[in-house]
């Protein structure tokens, strides 16, 4: 096979040289062809001019229809005396004729072709097409499409549930000290989810605090109730914004990274290697990542709270003229430990969601570069959707519980 490819390259390299001599005779005109009826039912296909990628030669379809129009052809021959330069364009055209001849049961005599072209055509037809390999694009009707969509969604729902179940078992095994994974992996994940995320969390939290304070200040100033900006910022950060914003940041930062890492391992058969050696990918790959987010998310959430309140303070002090002490006292009085507790517990849940979505999409990834990209994208989308939905759920539950 290799030698076949080499041979093809050689022939292609020679092709232009072989035709240079003719160049003077026919000064560079675009390719053309004609079909003449020869004796004894031989259809003679005559080529002239340049048949190259640059010269606009007629397409295979034109030749096909011309041949089909010629009735009584029992054999196809070629006349290439007027042919100037040729490259793979010409070969493609010939292959079209050969296929057409085969389909119609007509003999195709390659004898009239340049020697190099003959060899290339023979090479291209040397390995017969693999039966059953060609994929025919079939268009499904609406109902078929709907059914397939439903089956696919059902399957993916099942897979996700099984995945969540397995993750729970892995966590349980970890809590009794029986889970197997490398401590280094946990450390690396902890570093990626914690310290390395601080800059972006800092920036976003301060800005969110500022924005909340601005929005509140415009309204509250009309009533002379500027001091309540402190309440607004503190409560919003503690209960909602800190957890949601860290969740979304981690989904984009860490969840996508998890999906890409595991997806790439899938492409390289590394996951298969784990499986055959009896390492559960769940414990070995998913668990350390999940643990890292479970540990780091509440810490990041607390950090985001503090910085968000600081951001609000900046607006309160410089724009609204409140004293730092007044702002501080008002903040302390307005939020309770329960508010922080709600936010922090949400952040733990969001951490689990981000880790699971990232790892699930990574492990389900196909074995191509674009599949890994898709895995990362859908991991982020899934985590963000889940975060918002779960947050809504929390809001309902806490309001029913009256906290």
């Amino acid at each position, binding site marked *: *096979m290799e030698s076949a490819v080499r041979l093809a390259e050689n022939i292609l390299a020679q092709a232009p040289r072989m035709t240079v001599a003719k160049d003077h005779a026919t000064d560079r005109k675009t390719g053309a062809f004609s079909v003449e009826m020869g004796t004894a039912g031989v259809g003679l296909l005559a080529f002239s001019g340049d048949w190259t990628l640059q010269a606009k030669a007629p397409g295979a379809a034109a030749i096909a229809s011309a041949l089909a129009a010629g009735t009584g052809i029992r054999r196809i021959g070629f006349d290439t005396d007027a042919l100037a330069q040729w490259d793979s364009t010409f070969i493609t055209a010939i292959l079209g004729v050969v296929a057409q001849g085969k389909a119609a049961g007509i003999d195709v005599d390659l004898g009239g072709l340049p020697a190099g072209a003959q060899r290339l055509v*023979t090479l291209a037809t040397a390995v017969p097409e693999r039966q059953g390999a060609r994929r025919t694009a079939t268009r499904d009707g609406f109902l078929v499409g709907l059914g397939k969509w439903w089956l696919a969604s059902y399957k993916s729902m099942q897979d996700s549930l099984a995945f969540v179940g397995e993750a729970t078992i892995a966590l349980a095994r970890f809590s009794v000290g029986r889970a197997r994974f490398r401590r280094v992996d946990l450390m690396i994940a902890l570093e990626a989810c914690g310290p390395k995320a601080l800059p972006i969390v800092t920036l976003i939290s301060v800005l969110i605090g500022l924005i909340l304070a601005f929005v509140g200040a415009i309204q509250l100033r009309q009533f002379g109730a500027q001091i309540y900006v402190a309440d607004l910022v503190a409560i919003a950060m503690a209960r909602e914004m800190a957890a949601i914003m860290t969740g979304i940041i981690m989904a984009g930062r860490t969840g996508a990274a998890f999906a890409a890492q595991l997806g790439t391992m899938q492409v*390289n058969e*590394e996951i298969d290697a784990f499986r055959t050696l*009896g390492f559960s990918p769940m414990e070995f790959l998913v668990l350390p990542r999940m643990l890292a987010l479970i540990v780091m998310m509440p810490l990041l959430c607390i950090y985001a709270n503090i910085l968000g309140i600081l951001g609000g303070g900046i607006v309160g002090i410089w724009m609204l003229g409140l004293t730092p002490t007044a702002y501080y006292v008002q903040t302390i009085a307005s939020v309770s430990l329960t508010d922080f507790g709600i936010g922090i517990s949400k952040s733990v849940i969001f951490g689990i969601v981000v880790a699971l979505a990232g790892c699930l999409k990574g492990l389900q990834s196909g074995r191509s570069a674009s599949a890994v990209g898709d895995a990362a994208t859908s991991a982020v989308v899934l985590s963000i959707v889940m975060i918002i939905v779960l947050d809504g759920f929390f809001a309902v539950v806490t309001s029913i519980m009256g906290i």
Partner: protein
Amino acid sequence: MTGTTHTSSPHIEVSNLDLSYGDFVIQKNLTFTVNHGDVFIIMGGSGCGKSTVLKCLIGLKSPARGIVRFDGADFWSTAASTREAMMRRFGVLYQSGALWSSMTLAENVGLPLGEYTELGAAEIRDLAAMKLALVGLAGFEDFYPSEISGGMQKRAGIARAMALDPDVLFLDEPSAGLDPISSKLLDDLIVELRDSLGTTMVIVTHELASIFSIGTNSVFLDPVSKTMIAKGDPRELRDHSPDPNVREFLNRGASAMTKGPDPARTDSSRPTEAAR
């Protein structure tokens, strides 16, 4: 180094195996037996399903039909936990190497050792270094897979496959990407492991030199009829197979004339090839 004749009991028995990806049938009706201590070669043209057969034997892909037995025990119809226990006795080299990219070579080889033995960290490191030395990678213990060449990754993959001194070693194209000397050394290693540890070898390869020097048994898969068209000692097949395709393959396409004279391919192609 021609293979000594091993008269021993069946290790892997495959009967009436069909393999497919969805509706796309890859191979059907495979029946062959690998004996203890065999160097069993799976051969056939590119894309005919060799790796797929291997995936089925190592428990990564369930067959559409048929039975695979290891030492008489059914592999695919037992509980997943039993199958996993059986898989512990395999060593596998994947076609792409499949080294864990986040670990050094020593860690790659040492990970299964740490998991399934009671050895201490220092002993594991020594053992890993020894396995790496066996495949000619002494001194590369602390390299990451991305820092070594493709052929070296292949060899490191073999070291990892050998980590637990498995009963069966499955090697998917072990010598692809290796120079002739390394690939000869690899052949020596395979035979040595078989002779000293009694490891059964199942090897997917196109390397004719190693097929003839180490193979004791083989199966030949055909992509057109989608089944096996020959089995037995590869040297025997080369010289006496009734199937011209098999003889052609094993003689490097030299008996292509059996397909009928083809002037465009044989005669006129010669000058071009000789010109190289």
